[in-house]
């Protein structure tokens, strides 16, 4: 069975269907947006494949939401490719039309500073980007393969997490390494979670009723996998905590965040670690997992605060986050707002409370009561009235931004 599609033409297509894929390291989210005359954008099919490629005691499953019906299938999902296959099966079975497909791609290196239509040249460049984010980029490309196979002839595009940070000034993105090395390998800070920042920045500006071009804000994207912080001045990213790769910066669930670069050499030369196993350890066995010795999930760690390692892991998570917020306060010379987003950012009141504790020197005063009562699915303002800086919790929607990027691309003729 073929998937329905139509040639893109804004005049004829008053009702455009855009399928968006968002690969996480162990999940695959998807949404099909219905775009009505470019006025209303709403997802009418959505769901997520969970525990993709994860070996463990818990089972993989996939959810589908369409026409008011929710379905959950518990099935083995060995890879993102398999997950994408299941989604296309569902789309075919329900005879859902798709006109355009958007994909999230974490690291566009110095090849991409904006979203791009996937043609032969783009495809080659995407392949060159694979080693830059070895956890994320290959799985995104595998979903693109599946998508092209199932929707031949349908235009596809990629939206990059790193593109938002292309506005960073040289002082923020430069590594002081020899110029010939930097030129040859394009070593610089790229930054990630750009789609989330773009979405949340717009929502914060709308909520505050102040144009983004007049705001200085720090956004903390705190996810269950990766986390980062960005300093945003007048609608543009000016610094961020992740670097050339998504390994650096904050303490994450299994990623170590910042460490002494010489430490890696010491471990390989003196302690005889092989490069691949050491990198694997820093990416998959460090962070909260390495500190607590029992879980990479911040919720587990908070639940077991009686345990010494859990308390220490939580303490270091907050310590590093506060350091970055402090740094960016100086970069921006003071701020108008601090925003928390993504799963931990909007769901975890304790993290927000600890981060904002003892921050009155920066004009940040949290209303403890509002913070504890805040819901996670709507925008919440959490500061005291007297606070000079507004504290917001804003749920993000990366898929919506990917959809909007597709509408903005001139090559799509929209």
């Amino acid at each position, binding site marked *: 069975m073929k998937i329905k599609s139509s040639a893109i033409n804004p005049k004829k297509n008053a009702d455009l269907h855009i399928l968006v894929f968002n690969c996480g390291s162990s999940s695959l989210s998807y949404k099909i947006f219905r775009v009505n005359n470019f006025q209303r954008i709403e997802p009418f099919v959505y769901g997520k494949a969970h525990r993709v490629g994860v070996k463990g005691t818990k089972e993989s499953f996939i959810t589908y939401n369409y026409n008011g019906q929710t379905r959950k299938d518990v099935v083995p999902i060995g890879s993102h490719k398999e997950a994408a296959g299941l989604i296309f099966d569902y789309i075919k079975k329900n005879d859902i039309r798709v006109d355009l497909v958007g994909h999230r791609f974490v690291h566009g290196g110095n090849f991409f500073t904006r979203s791009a239509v996937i043609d032969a040249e783009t495809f080659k460049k995407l392949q060159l980007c694979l080693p830059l984010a070895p956890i994320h980029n290959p799985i995104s490309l595998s979903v693109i393969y599946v998508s092209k196979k199932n929707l031949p002839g349908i235009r596809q595009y990629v939206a990059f997490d790193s593109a938002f940070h292309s506005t960073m000034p040289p002082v923020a993105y430069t590594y*002081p*390494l020899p110029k010939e090395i930097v030129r040859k390998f394009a070593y610089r800070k790229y930054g990630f979670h750009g789609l989330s920042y773009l979405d949340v920045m717009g929502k914060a500006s709308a909520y505050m009723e102040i144009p983004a071009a007049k705001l200085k804000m720090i956004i903390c994207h705190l996810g269950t996998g990766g986390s980062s912080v960005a300093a945003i001045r007048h609608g543009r990213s000016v610094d961020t905590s992740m670097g050339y790769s998504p390994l650096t910066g904050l303490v994450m669930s299994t990623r*170590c965040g910042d460490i002494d670069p010489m*430490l890696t050499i*010491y471990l390989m030369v003196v302690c005889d670690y092989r490069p691949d196993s050491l990198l694997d*350890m820093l990416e998959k066995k460090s962070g909260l997992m390495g500190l607590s010795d029992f879980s990479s999930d911040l919720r587990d760690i908070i639940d077991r605060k009686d345990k010494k*390692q859990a308390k220490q892991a939580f303490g270091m998570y*907050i310590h590093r986050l506060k350091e970055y917020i*402090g740094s960016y306060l100086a970069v921006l010379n003071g701020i108008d707002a601090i925003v928390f987003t993504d799963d931990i950012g909007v769901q975890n009141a304790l993290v927000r409370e600890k981060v904002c504790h003892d921050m009155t020197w920066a004009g940040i005063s949290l209303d403890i009561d509002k913070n504890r009562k805040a819901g996670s699915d709507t925008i919440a303002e959490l500061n005291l009235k007297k606070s000079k800086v507004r504290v917001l919790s804003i749920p993000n929607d990366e898929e919506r931004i990917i959809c909007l990027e597709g509408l903005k691309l001139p090559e799509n003729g929209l």
Partner: protein
Amino acid sequence: MFYNDAFHIRWHAVQGGRVIAGRCKFSPAWPDIVAENIGDVKQIKVIGYFLHHGGQCIKKSVSFLTPQNFGELAKCVKYLPEYNDLTCKIASYWLKNFPGVSHVLLCDTAFFTRLPYSALNYAIPHHLRRQNIRRYGRFGLGHHWITKQMQAHVDVLRAKVISVYLGDHTNISALNGKRPMATSFGFTPVEGMLSLTGSGSIDPTIVFYLHATGMSFKEITKLLSQKSGFAALMEKKTSLAAVLNTGKSEKIMAARDFYCYNAAKLIAGFIAVLGGIDAVFFFAEKPDEFGGVIPDICRRFAFLGLNYKKNGDNGGNILNLTEKSSPVKAFCLRYSKWEVMEGNIVELLKT
């Protein structure tokens, strides 16, 4: 007092305010060269040794060294073999040949053994942390000295202070009263600020990518510690004075901006760790070399009320850089490692 790097020995002999200074390459003849330079070695009453890295073994900044506890010093060699081995050899010679005098060990990392857990450790697996993989910091004697100098200017028990050493290896510490709460140097002095030839903090995955291109670990070590930093930004070996205080070329201005930007980021990060700030203390062996960057760094904290004053008030050895009304103070001090070593030794002997 002895201070060594990997190949050279320096010494200062002090008697009644008179200083005899010397330097030689490490060779079998070094004891004779020292004796010849100092003169009557029988007059020596105390000998001090500067230890670059005390690891997990030396936990006091200043302590007596005896044949009984020499083993602890020997255990430190593994932490920084190229420097500590030579320190051990120097101390061993004098301990053996001058048993009747006091021997004092001055350890540059000991001050930071009291860092809180979150500032001391990396978020790496438990088995690596058990192998002493942690932040050690450096310039502990300098930052410890600041805790003494600040007494006249802030509430020494509760003050939230940022201590900034300006030099070839600029580094920054957060002090809560007399206790260190964070420091910018890490497992090695490469982490933190860029130096004349050191990269400072960079994404560690770059090490893996460079290795994958065929570079050896020795070459990568050399690249990060001897070919990066200001030397890379300026595309030539240079001096701090040339970059930070004089030239006005585009490249120099960019390098200076890079330095101030990263110093301000570290300082502000530590302010957040402390939960506020009372004062910043800059200290340098040649403060004049930093006359161009101190105002720049200070102005980046105007949003906190640091009110920088162009011509500071000179109060003895300390220069107040802020207006009286400024809620956050800034000071600048001239620092001499030899004088600080001597002061520490005298203080220990008194107790």
